[in-house]
């Protein structure tokens, strides 16, 4: 028996693959590689594989995480190599480590995500945009109507201010601007970057014509520090 955690990309080629479909992609890729994955016991055995925080449809990422349980040990580099030969373009295993048997699942430790949002718009200077972002983030409350998929897409007003940790303009090039933001992620509070941009659009009235979002990193909070999910497992408790 062996537990491993892998870090992988979800590139532009696979950004339209939903979380559920991504699981199937991994299961089938694993079956093609012959990696000795462990199966749950019980009525309907399934592969012991679990993912970190789900990514919104259309968002790319440099840092997704998946935990695997193997029936017998195998070198992590070998797993990485085999999977990279068997995964579709856009999904690349970047790194991996063996983790303790009694680890906390990737899903349960996620607390924050860092995103880079690239927007395209005309007739706005970078100074003005910087100022607007500051004003936006400094509000006491940031109210926005949110669709609730589980309630027939009924709209509900929520305050996203507590979910927004930081937001700043880090690059402007012609009419394309890159905004970096750190948002709460996971079961204790979750803000999707798309909703943040929606709120920002409403606040400024900007005509943002195109948006590309990439997740830069996913963190867990340990001893007051934000650690990425590989560091989280390798750090001393």
């Amino acid at each position, binding site marked *: 028996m062996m537990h491993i955690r892998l870090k992988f990309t979800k590139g532009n080629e*696979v950004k*339209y*693959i939903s979380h559920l*479909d991504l699981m199937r992609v991994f*299961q*089938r890729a694993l079956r*093609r590689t012959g990696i000795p994955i462990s199966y749950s016991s019980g009525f309907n055995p399934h592969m012991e594989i679990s993912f970190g925080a789900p990514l919104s449809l259309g968002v790319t990422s440099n840092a997704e995480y998946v935990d695997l349980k193997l029936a017998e040990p195998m070198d992590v580099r070998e797993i990485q190599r085999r999977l990279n030969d068997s995964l*579709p373009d856009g999904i690349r295993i970047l790194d991996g480590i063996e983790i303790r048997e009694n680890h906390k699942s990737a899903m349960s430790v996620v607390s924050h995500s860092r995103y880079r949002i690239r927007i395209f718009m005309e007739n706005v200077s970078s100074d003005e945009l910087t100022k607007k972002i500051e004003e936006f983030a400094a509000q006491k409350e940031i109210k926005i109507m949110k669709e609730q998929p589980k309630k027939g897409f009924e709209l509900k007003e929520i305050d996203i201010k507590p979910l927004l940790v930081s937001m700043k303009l880090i690059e402007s090039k012609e009419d394309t601007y890159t905004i970096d933001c750190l948002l709460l992620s996971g079961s204790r509070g979750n803000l999707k970057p798309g909703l943040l941009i929606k709120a920002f659009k409403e606040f400024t009235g900007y005509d943002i*014509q*195109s948006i590309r979002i990439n997740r830069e990193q996913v963190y867990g909070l340990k001893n007051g520090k934000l650690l990425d999910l590989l560091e989280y497992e390798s750090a001393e408790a």
Partner: protein
Amino acid sequence: MKYDNTREFIYEELLSKVEKPGRYIGTEWNSIHKNPETVDIRFAFCFPDVYEVGMSHLGMKILYHLLNDQQDIFCERVFAPWPDMEEVMRKTGIKLFGLESRDFIDSFDFVGFTLQYEMSYTNIVNMLDLAGIPKRSGERNEGHPFVVAGGPCAYNPEPLYDIVDFFMLGEGEEQLLEVMEHYRKWKDSKGTREEFLKMAASVRGVYVPKFYNVEYNEDSTIKSIKPIKEDIPGKVRKRVIKNLKGSYFPDKIVVPFIDIVHDRIMLEIFRGCTRGCRFCQAGMIYRPVREREVEELLEIADKLIQSSGYEEISLSSLSTSDFSKLNELVERLVSRYKSSRIGLSLPSLRIDSFSLKLVQEVQKVRKSGLTFAPEAGTQRMRNVINKGVDEEDLLNSVGAAFETGYSSVKLYYMIGLPGETMEDIQGIADLTFKVVDRYYQVPKEKRGKGLNVTASASSFVPKPFTPFQWEPQDPINTLIEKQRYLQKAIKKKQITFNWHEPYVSYMEAVFARGDRRLCDVLIRAWELGCKFDGWDQYFDFEAWLQAFKDTGADPDSYAARRRELDEVLPWDHIDVGVTKKYLRGEYKKSLKGELTRDCRTACTGCGINLLQEGGVCK
């Protein structure tokens, strides 16, 4: 934002605006990507329905890889864009594109449609329109692709005669490559469109509608269908692969990103069926029966699992139980894949005590449900349709199933069968109740909990090349009356009753036995907004009636008219091997309620063994 090319524009701008972008990505595992600059022939393989349906189709998987195995051919997949995608395509001027390259298909050499059901025809018109390809054959010129079609509905090609340049009848594995060979020669010779059509017509199984002339009688029935050129065959014979042993089967299949209708490996164990049910078109047109050998099937299964990573194999055929070495195949598949947890499913199984053991072997854990197809409620009716199952067989089988713990069964019936009376309808309710009673005869401790019997009644649609091809369909009102009767008669809390939309079945009956005059109706219906007619939320019966009115055609003369046995039928110039004489004989036997035996026991003289030199029937 500016994009370097259309490929990127479609991906970034269009796909971000549709509900299921996974339908249009085109980079699924095992999809084939070639450099368009390095190939000579580009083929758009079009399935006129949504991705999830089309990707579940075995024939497409076979032919996609067959064509792409040719170095100089690049075959891409195209499905009917869902209306949300169509809307953004039309808004932005994006024409119908091949999924792999995202190049517009109007510049391809071939645009090929597979015809699986009549209610997909308006999607063909819509897809041609989206592609910017003229809808009528006569309006296309040297710069346009050839529009071709195949599949089961191509056996009555006439309703599409003015849309499709040529049809390929029968199994495509050999024929398609022969057509491609002619195309290479024709391209080199820089000939005219007409010249290529002539070359194609020399391939056995190819039907070029414009080379035939149809004359009508005063009562608007058909007088004759004759070739207008000397070197064109009077009858077009379907193609069959003589022996499945060693015949082409791909060693990889495209694995979709999104969930599709049949998301598993389909292992084709044999083609054809010998049962001879009189309503069943597949049972006639896919003859003769040819099995693949167990060793070869195991080899194919191994390769497909290795290359796809699928977790399930489904045995594919018209009647799984009739595979002569089923036991051996199932045992070997199960023992081979048990440790890697690959599941096996056995659809279209005739459930008897023997096969029940097999099913138990296969479904050790998952007890989904079992499906039975008595098709009719009374023995009289089952004799008429030559369904060789009696009530005792059925009750024994469901009884055995209940005794081994199954508590969920599905029963398939048809209503509107030839000569059906209300007694036969009552018989459906009675038989379903007997199945319920059979469950309660099993001791409580032995049977599974929570009985659920689903009874589905579809409306009978008479099809070409069946013994019922001369029969009228029940009028819509009669079908509705029968459905209502059943709804009341079958009411019980353990029974769920399903039925089909009778208006759709009516239109299906019109087109199944339609002739050339329906082509204008079809195009008019599309102009009036008809598409995705197989989807209840899009089917618009009023628009269809309007289309008939506008073109002066009478739908009842196709669906509701009894044809004379000596009438020239719109598909009389097509030869599927099973002869008209045999079908007539079967029709007459049905009137007397006489059974015809399974032809595995002894030949019943359907004519298929004369289709090809040397015979193909065992």
